[in-house]
């Protein structure tokens, strides 16, 4: 059995994310967003990051507000249930942050190109749109077989892909379930892959279902145990979406000053995971817990 890849959140982030790294995170779009990892990036004052994702709900806005971001490669940056995200708006309007404008399809093809080890992927989207003006990764090409005009989408290779999952073993073999978004391609494309897991389980648990492995251990550099690490986003099998947090964040992020207060309370002054969960509070956690359990029918992987 190879050596354990289990790290604390602090160690994993400080070791594998550098200032200037290109980081993919929030790849399931609305579910399983690695908020705990994102907050650690802010706490460690990482700088000049490039953020990669389609839609990562409010996590990108928090990282921008935290001063970590030089560039965003994304399809949508906002607050899914309230609309605009204010740190992002301010950063782009002030010219402090660069944006490469994607659609969900162009972003998934950028990552899939890298996952497949080719420099681009063809698509039929965005033709005639102005995405071509604010995304140098898009060019029109002619299909060598049909003569059709297509969009060529250049590969994006994240230095680090961080995903939140339900369970993993110490070697980084991870089970993830729910909607997948662009998670598979983001993991395959990432040079380093960091797994944040609700639960660390014996290898046997993971091995009992190799189809549910989102990325195998040999492609993973670190595993971090962070229960409720996806909060306030929903994590299938673990907890529901904490809508109130997103509504509160909308209000808090309206001005740099109120965002600073929010950040002090929810990130800077948070000592550890236990402290974070105390701030969320037991009542709220109870409300978010899964009420109607639905266990998957087993599949037999015997021989």
């Amino acid at each position: 059995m190879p050596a354990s890849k289990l790290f604390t959140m602090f160690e994993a982030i400080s070791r594998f994310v550098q200032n200037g790294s290109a980081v993919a995170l929030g790849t399931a779009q609305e579910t399983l967003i690695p908020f705990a990892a994102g907050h650690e990036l802010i706490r460690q004052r990482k700088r000049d990051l490039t953020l990669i994702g389609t839609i990562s709900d409010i996590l990108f806005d928090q990282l921008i507000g935290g001063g970590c971001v030089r560039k965003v490669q994304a399809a949508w940056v906002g607050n899914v249930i309230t609309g605009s995200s204010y740190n992002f708006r301010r950063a782009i309007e002030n010219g402090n942050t660069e944006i490469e404008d994607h659609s969900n399809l162009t972003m998934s093809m950028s990552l899939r190109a890298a996952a497949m080890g080719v420099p681009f992927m063809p698509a039929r989207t965005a033709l005639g749109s102005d995405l071509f003006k604010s995304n140098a990764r898009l060019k029109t090409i002619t299909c060598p077989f049909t003569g059709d005009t297509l969009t060529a989408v250049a590969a994006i290779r994240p230095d680090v892909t961080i995903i939140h999952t339900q369970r993993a073993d110490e070697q980084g073999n991870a089970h993830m379930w729910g909607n997948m978004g662009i998670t598979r391609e983001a993991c395959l494309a990432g040079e380093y892959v960091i797994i944040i897991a609700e639960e660390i389980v014996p290898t046997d648990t993971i091995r009992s279902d190799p189809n549910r492995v989102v990325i195998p251990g040999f492609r993973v550099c670190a595993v971090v145990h962070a229960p409720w690490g996806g909060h306030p986003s929903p994590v299938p099998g673990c907890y529901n979406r904490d809508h109130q947090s997103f509504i509160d964040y909308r209000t808090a992020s309206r001005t740099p000053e109120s965002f600073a207060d929010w950040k002090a309370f929810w990130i800077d002054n948070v000592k550890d995971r236990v402290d974070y969960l105390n701030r969320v509070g037991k009542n709220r956690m109870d409300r978010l817990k899964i009420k109607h359990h639905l266990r998957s029918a087993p599949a037999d992987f015997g021989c």
Partner: protein
Amino acid sequence: MKSTITKQAEISDYTPLQLMVTAAAREIANKEIVFVGMRLPLLGFLLAKSTHAPDAIGVYELGIVRDTPAPGSILTMGDLPNLFCAQWLTDTADLMGLLQQGRVDVAFIGGAQVDRFGNLNTSYVGGTKKIKTRLPGSGGACDLASLAKRHIIIMTHEKRRFVPRVDYITSPGYGDGQGWRERVGLPRGGPCMVITNLGILRSDPGTREMVLTSIHPGVTVEEIVANTGWRLCMAPKITRTPIPDDTELAMLRRFDPQGYWTS
């Protein structure tokens, strides 16, 4: 359950947003494959599904396909009830493949700025050179507008939003008119209508311009013209938008019990 619905349905007041959602829902035919966008379209699909289109299939960009309504109220497509007993949980790319193949019948998208050819801007008010307001961006909207067989735009009717020419095309409509989509290489589709809080505009099959076809109850043509930033053409016959019926209102209250989206 049934009796509760009947009781609620007696209250026949409705909000403008409920009217918009109902108008959108009625555009979904039974058995259609619907690519469901964020926010209001979520409700529109639930409404259609639980009334006249029980066999419609809902496709959600984050990797969900549903053929039953979510069992509980949801504020967004990533809410766990929307994953519960889904027909399929998969990669976004697989669903984008359905779109590119031309298997998606209809898609719904919102916008911040629309022009007379149905081009949508959800990225940059003021354009990229002189950014006045940065908006969230495309998400899947550009893909839906590019690739669905038809798409429907839902937005608030204000002069600053209904402009002659959008500052930035996030989601292509008919560009500068007839033939443009073919010319740029888009394989199909186009915006068939814009549903607003005042009325309904539909794309004219000849000019591809958005023309007024329906006015919501209590709204005047003058009001709509005053809130439109281009010289709005009128359809030969302009109808009055039918109001939500009692069943529709009951369903809307069931799916949005707090009125988060429709109050």
